[in-house]
């Protein structure tokens, strides 16, 4: 085992971590602000990949498809929030959880009915194919591209939440919905928008993952758990937490894969258990959230 391999593995972990960040951010956003545990997150991810396939077939351009997916999936999220989740606010976390679980099953099955069981091919666009020599080893160009996309997305989200007046409203709403009512801001619109953004990011993660994995109706099931781990380790509702936790999980998984590969799935859960036992609210979570 050479130093180069360890370095490459570390880098691989960071790249994998950026995928985890992408998966976790949407879930964390929705939970942090709405305290809704969105069990349909994986299903929206999967729908994102299929919408990508559909958009690519009709638009014929990867970049256009990539741009269309978050808009379409986010739009679906708006509909879901408005008509299905909204009636459940104030009934505790169990009900939205059960509802989104059911919704996840329905979405997966609808995709099965439309696209079949076998999965559809989805290839890396020509310009992003191939591998690059990093000096320590070869690395896929597409994964480098993903790191960039994730960084841009996180930065944009940060700008939106921290620097725009609407972002301020969202953050205020997260800390105390009552204040919003006093100020005369319509909190339900804020929640609608946040749910839309969260699902849109899940869809984007789906289409971006499509060229690396198989586009099949079941592709979202493991993703849901990974997203949960990232969210919980980082602290529910913390953007910074999701980023740090995503990268951390990526590196831990990658290093386990080097030294004890068959346990690399377990590594993620052990990390989560360890973090929660030491810091029950997650790395960057607020204390007291959710009792």
């Amino acid at each position, binding site marked *: 085992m050479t130093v180069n391999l360890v370095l490459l593995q570390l880098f691989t972990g960071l790249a994998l971590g950026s995928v985890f960040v992408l998966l976790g951010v949407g879930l964390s956003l929705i939970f942090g602000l709405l305290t809704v545990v969105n069990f349909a997150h994986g299903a929206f991810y999967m729908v994102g990949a299929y919408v990508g396939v559909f958009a690519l077939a009709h638009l014929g351009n990867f970049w256009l498809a990539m741009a269309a997916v978050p808009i379409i999936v986010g739009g679906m999220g708006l509909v879901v929030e408005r008509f299905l989740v909204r009636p459940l606010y104030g*009934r505790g976390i169990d009900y939205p959880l*059960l509802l989104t679980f*059911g919704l996840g*099953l329905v979405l997966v099955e609808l995709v099965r009915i439309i696209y079949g069981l076998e999965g559809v091919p989805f290839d890396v666009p020509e310009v992003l194919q191939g591998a690059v020599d990093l000096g320590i080893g070869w690395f896929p160009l597409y994964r480098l591209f993903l790191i960039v996309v994730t960084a841009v997305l996180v930065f944009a989200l940060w700008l939106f939440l921290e620097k725009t007046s609407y972002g301020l409203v969202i953050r205020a709403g997260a800390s105390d919905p009552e204040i919003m009512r006093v100020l005369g801001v319509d909190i339900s619109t804020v929640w609608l928008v946040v749910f839309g953004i969260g699902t849109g990011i899940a869809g984007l993660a789906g289409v971006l993952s499509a060229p690396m994995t198989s586009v099949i109706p079941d592709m979202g099931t493991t993703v849901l758990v990974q997203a949960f*781990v990232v969210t919980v380790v980082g602290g529910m509702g913390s953007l910074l937490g999701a980023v740090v936790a995503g990268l951390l999980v990526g590196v831990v998984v990658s290093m386990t894969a080097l030294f004890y590969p068959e346990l690399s799935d*377990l590594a993620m859960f052990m990390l989560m258990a360890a973090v929660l*036992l030491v810091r029950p609210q997650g790395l960057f979570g607020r204390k007291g959230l959710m009792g």
Partner: protein
Amino acid sequence: MSDTAEPRPKAYWSRIVDAIARHRALAVLVVLLIFPFVLPYEALASNIVIFGLFALGFNLVFGYTGVLSFGHAAFFGVGAYGTGIAIVHLGLPWWVAMLIGVLAAGVTAMIMGALAIRTRGIYFAMVTLALAQCVYYIVYQMKGWSGGENGLNGVIVGQIDLGFASIDLLDPMQKYFFTLTFVALAIFIFSRILASGFGAVLEAVRENEDRARACGYDVRLTKWLAFVISGLFCGLAGALNAIHLSVVPIEILHYHMSGQVVMMALLGGMGTFFGPFAGAIVFLLLEDVVTTMTTHWQLILGLVFMACVLFFPRGVWGSVLQWVRR
């Protein structure tokens, strides 16, 4: 319980429900006794009572203590593996094997509970999920004992000789009543625990932790004990499942199983005595019937869940109670 004298059409039902509530363990038994005769096949009836017990045990933590656990597959699974390994690898008699399974589940619950009990709310759910996944991987990696991905096959009991009678577990009806005997015993014990002083403490903790603490109750210890007792019941369900199926599949430990039991409890009505059983019946029956009709059973199941949440938030049994008592 309303004491208005005015005669109402629902008063009749109300009295029945009250009678059921008073003799709840007995009421469940009556239903379960006729069960295998009305269901499509006996194995489904056995499945339902086993999962009903699993959901019942889970509900002690979820419904009666107010703590959402996402790790109960660990107890169900360890109970099953404990029993299976004792029979397949150690060649022990079935009842010793079941005892081992139940105790193993109890020990697992003691450890998981001790680690997880200091977190609260959704974090408790996540810690239990993570710890249960650890159990899954540990069992998965113990290939020599557990069979790994292949599962543990050949958990065969066959004939049971009781001295005065013998039970043939290959006969589906006899197997159902064998299973039911244990489930009935468990329901009786469960009912006793709920009615006991400790049951009152659980209610108090669920209602108001701070107040319970101020009264002098050790809330953590109470929750932990409830968690362990719950683990024992779920372990028994797992042990019965191993004997029922003759195999212990690895997916029994997967978090999907934990999710499934949460769904059953919610679907039936959490915090009600009959809820978990009602949930298990509805869930498994629905799945069984719909699966045979269409490969798109998940669509139906998903829609039913959504409808339940939106229109029957108290669950099946909870809604019945509400309707009758209104």
